[in-house]
């Protein structure tokens, strides 16, 4: 019987598991190892669960909502200034939501994958930078839904400015200072408004998504 997983398999798992819980998750998976197929199946089930759990822990629903609204407003303002005629087409409102969604998704994932042991002053800006790069790539590949280059450039610049300011004011949960004897996430629950959780924040996002889909289908 093999004693442990293959180096390639373990390396892939190492890349996929967020650094904050990499040590124990990979150790547990190695201890449970019963063959390559079982290891793959376990990784396929455990890693998405771990990523989901990490996102729940690192995402502040209130800040994420503020970021989403400010980014959409930035793109809307850029369109208003540079190409007001575009706003006459209802679908433009849906197209404007694509870069903010990519920005936000990249930021949330960057927070989930950030290493809490490494503290850098520009860490809060790392997520939006990745988001900006991804949004640019998507815009370059999407011909039909792409915004005009000037709108995209100004919208992105404004979004970057607003989101960076927001993130420097409200740093990611893992980077906030902690009390000496209090668990970090317990403190987070103490500080967060009791009525607004991630699930509640999903409701306006769902409504926004429904509106976007309706406008796209028009």
């Amino acid at each position, binding site marked *: 019987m093999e004693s442990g997983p293959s180096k390639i398999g373990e390396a892939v798992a190492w890349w996929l598991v967020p650094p904050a819980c990499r040590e*124990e998750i990979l150790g*547990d998976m190695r201890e449970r190892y019963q063959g390559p197929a079982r290891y793959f199946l376990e990784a396929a089930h*455990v890693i998405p669960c771990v990523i989901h*759990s990490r996102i729940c822990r690192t995402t502040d629903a209130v800040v994420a909502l503020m970021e989403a609204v400010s980014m959409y407003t930035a793109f809307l303002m850029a369109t208003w200034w540079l190409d007001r005629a575009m706003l006459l087409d209802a679908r433009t409102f849906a197209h404007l939501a694509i870069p903010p969604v990519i920005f936000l998704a990249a930021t949330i994932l960057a927070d989930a994958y950030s290493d809490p042991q490494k503290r850098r002053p520009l860490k809060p800006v790392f997520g939006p930078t990745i988001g900006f790069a991804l949004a640019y790539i998507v815009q370059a590949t999407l011909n039909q839904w792409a915004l005009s280059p000037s709108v995209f450039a100004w919208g992105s610049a404004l979004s970057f400015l607003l989101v960076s300011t927001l993130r420097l004011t409200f740093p990611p949960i893992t980077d906030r200072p902690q009390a000496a004897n209090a668990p970090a996430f317990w403190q987070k629950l103490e500080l967060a408004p009791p009525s607004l959780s991630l699930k509640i924040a999903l409701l306006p996002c769902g409504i926004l998504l429904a509106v976007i889909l309706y406008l796209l289908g028009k």
Partner: protein
Amino acid sequence: MPEPAGRHEQIILTAILSLRDEAYGVTIHEKAVQLSAPKSISPGAVYITLDRLEDKGLISSWLSDPTPERGGRSKRFYRLEALGERALEESAETAQRVWDMVTEIWGGFAEEVRRRPKWSPVRPK
């Protein structure tokens, strides 16, 4: 006042309580499988529940030294906090009250139902 624990949370809290100083991912999952039988519980669900319990302040965790049998990786050990003990106590008291009420209403019938072999239908020819 602790938040009421859900079914998965009760199972994980009980597993941590019973394992004492040996409560880490693998052992907690094995114990949780025993406790939730005949239903199964996946390792992924265990990790999600452990994170949630830690967020609620019901448990706390720390990393051990690296061990060679795990490829030089550490174990994350879990411990029940005072709030977790109280949440588990409340859940156990609620379950006890429910069971007392059931036995009071059904009398000996509840015991009989528990002992009765599973119904196996005979397919008509």
